[in-house]
């Protein structure tokens, strides 16, 4: 997709980035000690910390990923909103206060507070680093996606800009500036998402999303002997016919221009429906709807094909309330765009065909995660759904960059209140994701190449000002989240590994310096990964980070807090087994096989979400190893 670059967008973007950097400079002067760098001196107000929590949590995955997923797959995207928010219940009721009581700077400190074990230090620092890096990749990819329409820059440059700014922020000020950046960003994200939702509801539902929306060509045709297709309009000439997965695609030429159409049989008629397509020719040239990208022939999509209000079909509704909006979509029909790839001679062709879907199917689970037997769901499909819901529920309270925020407030009471502020802000935002996602689905804003940009592009239809602000906030979202992750990663390397595990003697100043060097190294690594993983689904990687966190960290945290027989070796082995099993399952999953260019069905483990296997494995490991090594605990108690 080619986007017009707006000067206003650039000005707003520079203003917000400038604000973030200004804050960093201000707080950098105040950060002198290790506790100031890693935990903001433990003196952040609970309300500020709560919104900062929301800022940390509402990353690119939430704002860009979930809205995009809802825009493409309806309610299944909203499952992520439900699961992500439910995860906070575990954080609030089980983890927040005890962890605040145990910890000092990092997640590893908390786990190790009782044992002072080298095994735990090593395992926890590895786990923190791995989860943070997995979480970093989608943020960087999201940043790259954002700058394309916002600033007209290539993807890699966006990743470089984010990486450089974040390295600068983190290396100068640590957790204090990260907290205030997250506070401002979290608050702005919720406010402007609310405004966007108001615009969506005021706009209502219409069969014509906007004046410039593409009018799809439909050609009447006939099929003889189940094979020969003839188009009624003689101006169109059929060049090729391809059958892929029982779907028939036809290449058609008119006045020297070619296009791809899909053969449909509806109400006794044979119709050829226009599609979007990208062709990669033998010499590597990429054509969008048969022309170079700069010709702007590749358009945005997503519209309603039928609107039903009180049993009557209408063209538009006018302004609607939130419940009426959801109810009307459920009664109506929406045209989604399904993707299919095939080869045509030496050309690699990817098409997006119109897929009219009833609102009823959109407003319940099942479009992305097959769970109904009626749609052919298998045992593994349903296990995949269960596994996803489990990982989302248990992953939140095991994310290191979320856990370290408990150390930035002065008391357990403040930790609890922060969490409640966070749950309220995040819960409210997640309800908005349904409206922003559905709004994107029906307002002709979808860029079929990247679902991540659905919400910002929706804002663009309501004015360049709103688009600029929303995009700049989304960019700040990435900045803030990446900052938090890099602080957590640098803590794992400099504090947990170098200082605690290797026991390198360092002064307080030296520790801060080591943290900053670690932050710069992780930042550069994240930039490289962000460029390498371009085009990868943001939510896929975040889901992976959740599953790894839930498998590696949560059993260790919960058993440490609630089971007295837990031993240091039990914790360390549980973390290691959790990491290896979750990553191992993902590497051999159907989704990864598809990415390797292999046949997904050949994957040895027919499961994309590993939680259902890896979490119980980590729990069993912890119990068994703790039972086998319980004498270690007794010896320790005697020594005290």
């Amino acid at each position, binding site marked *: 997709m080619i986007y017009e670059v707006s000067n206003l967008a650039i000005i707003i973007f520079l203003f917000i980035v400038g604000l973030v950097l200004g804050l960093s400079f201000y707080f950098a002067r105040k950060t002198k000690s290790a*506790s100031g760098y890693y935990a903001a*001196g433990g003196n952040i107000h609970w309300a500020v910390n709560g919104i900062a929590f929301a800022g940390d949590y509402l990353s690119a995955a939430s704002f860009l990923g979930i809205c995009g997923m809802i825009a493409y797959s309806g309610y299944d995207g909203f499952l992520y909103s439900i699961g992500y928010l439910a995860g906070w219940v575990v954080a609030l*009721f089980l983890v927040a206060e005890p962890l605040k009581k145990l910890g*000092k700077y990092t997640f590893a400190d908390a786990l190790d507070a009782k044992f002072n074990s080298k095994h735990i230090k090593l395992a926890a620092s590895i786990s923190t680093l791995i989860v943070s890096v997995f979480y970093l990749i989608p943020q960087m990819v999201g940043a790259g996606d954002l700058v394309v329409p916002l600033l007209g820059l290539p993807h890699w440059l966006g990743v470089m800009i984010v990486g450089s700014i974040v390295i600068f922020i983190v290396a100068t000020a640590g957790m204090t500036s990260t907290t205030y950046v997250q506070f401002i960003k979290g608050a702005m994200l919720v406010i402007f998402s609310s405004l966007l939702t108001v615009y969506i509801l005021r706009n209502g539902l219409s069969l014509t999303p906007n004046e410039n929306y593409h009018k799809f060509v439909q050609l009447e045709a006939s099929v003889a002997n189940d094979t020969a297709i003839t188009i009624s309009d003689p101006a169109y000439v059929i060049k090729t016919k391809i059958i892929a997965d029982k779907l028939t695609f036809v290449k058609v030429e008119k006045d020297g221009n070619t296009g791809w159409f899909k053969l449909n049989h509806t109400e006794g008629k044979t119709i050829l429906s226009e599609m979007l397509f990208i062709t990669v020719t033998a010499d590597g040239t990429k054509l969008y709807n048969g022309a170079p990208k700069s010709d702007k022939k590749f358009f945005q999509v997503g519209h309603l094909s039928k609107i039903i209000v009180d049993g009557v079909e209408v063209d538009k509704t006018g302004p609607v309330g939130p419940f009426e909006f959801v*109810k009307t979509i459920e009664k109506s029909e929406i045209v989604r765009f399904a993707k299919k790839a095939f080869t045509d001679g030496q050309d690699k062709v990817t098409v997006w065909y119109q897929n009219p879907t009833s609102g009823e199917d959109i*407003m319940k*689970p*099942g479009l992305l995660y097959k769970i109904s037997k009626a749609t052919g769901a298998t045992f593994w499909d349903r296990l995949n*759904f269960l596994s996803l819901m489990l990982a989302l529920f248990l992953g939140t309270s095991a994310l290191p960059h979320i856990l370290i925020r408990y150390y930035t407030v002065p008391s357990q009471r403040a930790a609890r209140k922060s969490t409640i502020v966070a749950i309220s802000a995040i*819960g409210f935002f997640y309800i908005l994701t349904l409206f922003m996602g559905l709004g994107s689905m029906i307002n002709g804003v979808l860029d079929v190449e990247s679902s991540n940009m659905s919400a910002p592009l929706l804002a663009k239809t309501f004015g360049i000002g709103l688009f600029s602000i929303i995009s700049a906030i989304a960019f700040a979202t990435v900045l803030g989240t990446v900052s938090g992750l890099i602080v957590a990663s640098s803590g794992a390397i400099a504090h947990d590994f170098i200082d605690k595990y290797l026991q390198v003697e360092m002064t307080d100043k030296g520790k801060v310096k080591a943290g900053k060097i670690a932050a710069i190294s992780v930042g550069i690594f994240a930039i490289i990964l962000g460029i390498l993983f371009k085009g990868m689904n943001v939510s896929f990687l975040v889901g992976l980070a959740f599953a790894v966190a839930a498998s590696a960290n949560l059993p260790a945290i919960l058993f440490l807090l609630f089971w007295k027989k837990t031993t240091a070796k039990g914790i360390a082995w549980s973390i290691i087994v959790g990491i290896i099993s979750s990553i191992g399952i993902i590497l051999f999953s159907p989704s990864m096989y598809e990415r390797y260019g292999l046949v997904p069905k050949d994957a040895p483990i027919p499961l994309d979400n590993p939680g259902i296997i890896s979490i119980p494995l980590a729990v069993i490991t912890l119990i068994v190893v703790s039972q086998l090594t319980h004498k270690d605990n007794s010896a320790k108690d005697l020594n005290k």
Partner: protein
Amino acid sequence: MLHEPASKVGTDKAADKKARLGVIMFIAYTLVYSGFVVIGLTNPELMGLQLISGQNLAIIYGFGLIVLAIVMGFIYNYFCTKMEDKMNKTNL
């Protein structure tokens, strides 16, 4: 020395009681959340059932889980604060 909290946390005599309340509320929420997952797994068609003012079960249950988490958060905070005030008169 290295294993002290970043900021000093006073002795909390209400800690055990709060932990017990947390576990009870966690179990309650987990049961409601599990109900959602179980319906999705065993009878997904039920999610499309129209309930109140034209909204289906999926929307009501989904929104309900989000709102319930927030409401339970406030309830938990209310009782924890009460316990702390009662049991830690000189602390916190």
